[in-house]
């Protein structure tokens, strides 16, 4: 009997060591979040020691690498939102239509073909999409309208739309398929056509999922780096025309990193300052997605 107890104790000790290790791993994920916040804010504090917050948020010029220097973040934010918003304008209708096709119209067999194609599209690295924008989309756009510059916001928006399309389509597809069959039946039993059932019953019932897929796609588009850096160029400006080059926050970060800027310079520090802005935008957008899910779920269930 005593022997058994000791054996059990040994198991217990081994287990305690292991559990402690796993526990450390699990809690280290909180450390990452803390690390991001601490690093971004402490490093950018050096930046804000030299550049006033009012200049940063108020000025409409961003020329950190050229004299006279200006550090107004608005053009970068504007460029970011412009291409991400443009991408949504293209991708949301397409993505929802694809989701409707996959969940409502496609046969089991064609679903088996199209779903992996979407997954394939989602698995292509961002730098490949950048290549696609430069070598295919931009030439086509310039053929259609010669006024379009080599680097332009439109090409970036289109390629971003292609990139977030699988995300919107697959989350919306899940949301649509989660609508119970009984709800569709009730529509058909009242003599509605398929399109009427889809548009006035299924899509409203799946709306929380569809909207949150769009918000997540927006967040993904804002944080996307390589494709927009290649396609949209590096001209931070407030322009309404998508034919011209702009610069996004992410593209600026890449530009500074590639320029081999020495530690301690204002350019190096500006990287963290715009990083804070990007981080705050992303957090705000992601939180709004969660809010939408919560609010709509309460309404429908």
């Amino acid at each position: 009997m005593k022997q058994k107890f000791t054996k059990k104790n040994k198991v217990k000790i081994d287990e305690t060591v292991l559990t402690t290790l796993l526990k450390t791993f699990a809690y280290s994920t909180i450390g990452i979040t803390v690390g991001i916040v601490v690093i971004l804010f402490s490093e950018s504090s050096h930046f804000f020691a030299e550049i006033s917050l009012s200049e940063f948020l108020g000025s409409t010029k961003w020329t950190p690498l050229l004299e006279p220097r200006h550090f107004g973040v608005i053009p970068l934010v504007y460029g970011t939102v412009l291409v991400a918003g443009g991408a949504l304008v293209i991708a949301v209708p397409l993505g929802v239509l694809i989701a409707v096709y996959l969940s409502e119209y496609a046969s089991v067999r064609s679903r088996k073909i199209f779903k992996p194609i979407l997954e394939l599209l989602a698995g292509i690295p961002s730098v490949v999409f950048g290549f696609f924008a430069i070598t295919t989309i931009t030439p086509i756009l310039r053929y259609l309208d010669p006024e379009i510059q080599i680097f332009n916001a439109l090409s970036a928006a289109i390629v971003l739309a292609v990139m977030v399309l699988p995300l919107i389509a697959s989350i919306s597809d899940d949301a649509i398929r989660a609508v119970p069959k009984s709800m569709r039946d009730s529509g058909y039993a009242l003599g509605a056509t398929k399109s009427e059932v889809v548009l006035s019953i299924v899509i409203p019932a799946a709306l929380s999922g569809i909207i949150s897929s769009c918000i997540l796609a927006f967040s993904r588009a804002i944080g996307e780096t390589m494709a927009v850096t290649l396609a949209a160029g590096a001209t931070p400006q407030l322009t309404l025309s998508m034919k011209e080059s702009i610069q996004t926050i992410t593209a600026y970060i890449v530009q500074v990193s590639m320029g081999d800027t020495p530690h301690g310079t204002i350019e190096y520090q500006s990287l963290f300052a715009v990083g804070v802005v990007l981080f705050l935008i992303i957090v705000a957008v992601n939180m709004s997605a969660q809010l939408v899910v919560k609010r709509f779920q309460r309404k429908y269930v």
Partner: protein
Amino acid sequence: MNTSNLVLIRKNQTDISDVVRAAYDELTIGKKNNLKRRKLFNTLFRCLCALAVVLAVSVLVVLLSSVFIDGWQWLDWQFLTDFPSRHVEKSGIKSGIFGSVMIIVITMITAIPIGVGSAIYIQELMRESWLKSFVKTNISNLSGIPSIIYGILGLAVFVRILGFDRSILAGALALSLVILPIIIIATSEALAAIPNSIRNAALALGATKWQMVRDHILPNAWAEILTGVILATSRAFGETAPLLIVGALSYAAFVPEGIFDYFTTLPIQIFNWTGRPQAEFHQLAAAGIIVLMAILLVTNSLAIFLRNQFKRKII
């Protein structure tokens, strides 16, 4: 029931013949309602949906074929075994491939144990509490943060504070931050798919939580965990932004010899070539993309194969 009710029924009968006629009319002539227009709309809507799918598929086809047409002529042994060069015809991706492989190996060594271990702890060992839901929420938030932010974090922490400089180690650690949330989420889902009945059975036989995990949960979940890990790794393989921020070289004509060496990777070489104005370099980029996509295709097919092979044998 009295006679007046019977009279009422008789009276109703005369109405019925009108009803019969009206219903019959509606079925036969009955296009007086708007059905024709609605049917047309129905058909158009269906076509619209199909059109969207066709558009998405054709974009993919155009993308793949343009890459292939541009790149296949450069794809030979010499392309794989040469260093990059100013001269297009002498350029290759040797340094990129070595850099990518070394980065990925270190990324896997760090991210997989921490990721899988965290998921096991959170999903199986942790008691339900506000802390657990906080940790879970935190991880799902981390997965929504763009990779470039992890690049910035890596630049500050690994390159400057820990003094790893712009090395393979710094790049790999930044990359493991990117895929850590992905691995944790995939592993958690694999674990959550194991039915509770198995847990109850093991615990009721006197097993400790860890014995339950080791002997019953992991043997049933490993294939799905592995699938998630492979998909995360291939995501890391194509990742470019965080490595650029951490300071990967866009031009490197050497093979890194240790984890503290400077490095470049295949996606960064592709980025560099794509960014140049000359068409020949675009073709080199396309050839690099073919290699990159071939590697990703192999790893992803492996993941899909595993998923199908071992899919839910127990449930």
